[in-house]
């Protein structure tokens, strides 16, 4: 087939996914602010079942993780895999299908949660029809992604693609195994696993959804966009490769640290604790790699809000990946388990790391996609301050309440009697819940500013057509008409 036009990257689907991602960030965080307010004013559900905390909280987590997070990962994955492969996206139509089908799943899935359809398993609440849809879309995502890599014009597969690849493969495995259930009706199924075994499978999933989606997936984003923004190569490519395999191997063991002192075998808890501590090494290897990469671009940091977000996200990544292993130690976990500390930990990762690295990436990416300047650097800088303040306040409030809860619950007097009643401890948390609401509002306000800023940047502009640049010799991979490599062995 003779092409008239030069090949161009499929970037319009990237723009659309960014738009959806921002939309879900605004909506999902609004739900978060609402449930935070329900801690202070429990009648804020106005007697409506669909506003009830037990339904709204899973909607919040699903909208931000799967709506905001996965849309951002698809967008940045599609963008970076084309550029690191020097080829247009494989089956662009399928990429568009992934884009819209995923939004439909998040939308209908969210509504189904409000309707009370839930499997109850954390971060896997959606019922079986959605589970099947997710699995199918995920396979399509994999076909587009790996198909693009298979047709690449450059020999090495760049490190960011490994993390996106890990995201696609491992999440597929976790999702399918954990979601196995026998359906009763469209809205109800019973898990294939029961009791303690169900708990072990669920936290193998739950922790590694955090691992390979919220950590690994976003590390893919970091490994592509941090060097781009800092205008520096990765400090040590070899370190990133070693860290990748160590991360992939050790993360998967860590799940049962969510079940310390629960009714599961002690050896399961112990392996999880040890591997959680081991995990500190690859996590911080990546942190060091990132900081060293950006350390040659400090001057740029002063004026570029996008880079500021990404560097701050690294700091919170370091904090969260240090705090996690500490909380996985049984004697620490005995205090932190079941408390607000866990919520604070999750948000230091979700706000400080995931959201900030995404914000930084969007501020960098969106102007480039349409060939324009960012609408307002001042607004972006203001957003940065709001995001930082919101995240810090959130974490501090939840540390205070979580550690208090943990210690007060466990406190017994000299006679072995409980020192405090549950109700009194709970009532004492009110000021912290107030601070948390303020923190959420700050962070959400910043996100609104970004949504406006990006909207104004995109408005009335067309996506720039970009063609793959030629690949220099030792790295070039020659391909025939069908896109198959004509020779694989190095000359």
């Amino acid at each position: 087939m003779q092409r008239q036009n030069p090949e161009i990257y499929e970037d319009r689907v990237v723009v659309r996914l960014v738009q959806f991602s921002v939309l879900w960030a605004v909506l999902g965080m609004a739900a978060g602010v609402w449930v935070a307010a329900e801690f202070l004013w429990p009648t804020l559900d106005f007697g409506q079942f669909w506003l009830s905390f037990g339904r709204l909280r899973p909607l919040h987590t699903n909208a931000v993780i799967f709506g905001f997070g996965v849309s951002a990962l698809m967008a940045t994955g599609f963008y970076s895999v084309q550029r690191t492969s020097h080829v247009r996206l494989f089956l662009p139509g399928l990429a568009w299908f992934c884009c819209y089908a995923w939004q439909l799943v998040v939308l209908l899935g969210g509504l189904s949660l409000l309707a009370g359809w839930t499997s109850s398993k954390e971060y896997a609440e959606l019922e079986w029809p959605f589970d099947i849809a997710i699995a199918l879309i995920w396979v399509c995502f994999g076909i587009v992604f790996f198909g693009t890599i298979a047709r690449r014009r450059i020999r090495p597969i760049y490190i960011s693609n490994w993390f996106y690849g890990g995201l696609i493969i491992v999440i597929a495995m976790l999702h399918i195994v954990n979601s196995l259930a026998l359906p009763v009706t469209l809205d109800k199924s019973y898990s294939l696993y029961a009791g303690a075994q169900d708990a072990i499978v669920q936290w193998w999933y739950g922790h590694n959804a955090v691992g390979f989606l919220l950590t690994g997936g976003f590390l893919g984003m970091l490994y592509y966009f941090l060097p781009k923004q800092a205008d520096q190569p990765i400090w040590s490519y070899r370190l990133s490769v070693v860290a990748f395999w160590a991360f992939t191997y050790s993360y998967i063991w860590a799940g049962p640290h969510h079940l310390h002192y629960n009714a599961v075998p002690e050896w399961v808890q112990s392996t999880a604790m040890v591997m959680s501590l081991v995990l500190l090494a690859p996590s911080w290897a990546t942190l060091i790699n990132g900081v060293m990469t950006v350390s040659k671009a400090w001057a740029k940091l002063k004026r570029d809000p996008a880079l500021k977000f990404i560097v701050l996200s690294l700091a919170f990544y370091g904090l969260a990946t240090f705090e996690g292993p500490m909380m996985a130690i049984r004697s620490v976990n005995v205090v932190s388990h079941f408390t607000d500390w866990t919520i604070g930990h999750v948000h230091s990762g979700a706000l400080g790391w995931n959201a900030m690295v995404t914000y930084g990436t969007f501020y960098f990416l969106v102007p480039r996609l349409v060939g324009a300047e960012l609408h307002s650097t001042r607004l972006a800088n203001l957003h940065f301050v709001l995001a930082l303040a919101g995240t810090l306040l959130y974490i501090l409030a939840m540390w205070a309440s979580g550690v208090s809860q943990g210690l007060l619950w466990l406190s017994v007097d000299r006679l072995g009697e409980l020192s405090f009643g549950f109700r009194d401890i709970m009532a004492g948390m009110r000021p912290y819940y107030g601070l948390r609401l303020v923190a959420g509002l700050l962070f959400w306000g910043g996100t609104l500013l970004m949504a406006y800023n990006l909207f104004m940047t995109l408005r009335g502009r067309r996506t720039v057509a970009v063609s793959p640049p030629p690949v220099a010799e030792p790295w070039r991979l020659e391909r025939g008409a069908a896109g198959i490599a004509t020779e694989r062995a190095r000359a």
Partner: protein
Amino acid sequence: MNALELHKKIEENAGLLIFGILLVSAIGGLVQVLPSLFQESLSTPLSGTRVYDAVELTGRDIYIREGCHVCHSQQVRPLVAEVERYGPYSRAGEFVYDRPFLWGSKRTGPDLHRIGGKYSDIWHEVHLLDPRQVVPESIMPAYPWLAERPAAGVGDIQAKLRVLRRLGHPYADADIAAAPQRLEGLREIDALIVYLQMLGTGLDADAADAADAHGGH
């Protein structure tokens, strides 16, 4: 071939990369999760543990639907303060008919695994409909709709019991046949309270302690 050369191959071959990720990420699950699926002590009921009857199961499904597990755990840890506050610590054998498990990850409210029998039915009804009437400092939502809907409307109970039987729960044909009748005239709130009142009551704590002392789990 040394490790770096091998790695060069993976670095340039998408198929090897996919295979490598799958292999390396599967090990943990195969060594840690898979064996626990075959560990008998995790799937053997205690002497007092039984399947949920039609009303209890309906109550449990309401508990799930309303997301009670988002704020309440069902897992008493073997710690002095927890046993003091809630009762005997939770044993794996008590949960073998729990699909899904409802141990939870957060205690915004107290643990509920040993809630059965601690409060009267009427206390629960008032508490569910207006928590602050009996616990002034409570931040629990109210669930007024539970008093308005019939328990029989919470899914197809016979289909549920049949599915659970296929998963190995010992329901007799008579149990399944009589199930719709058992739900007749009950509201959702009634079923939920029946479930709450049986929670954690299937444990003979003295017998379980004795078994633990003999090295069982």
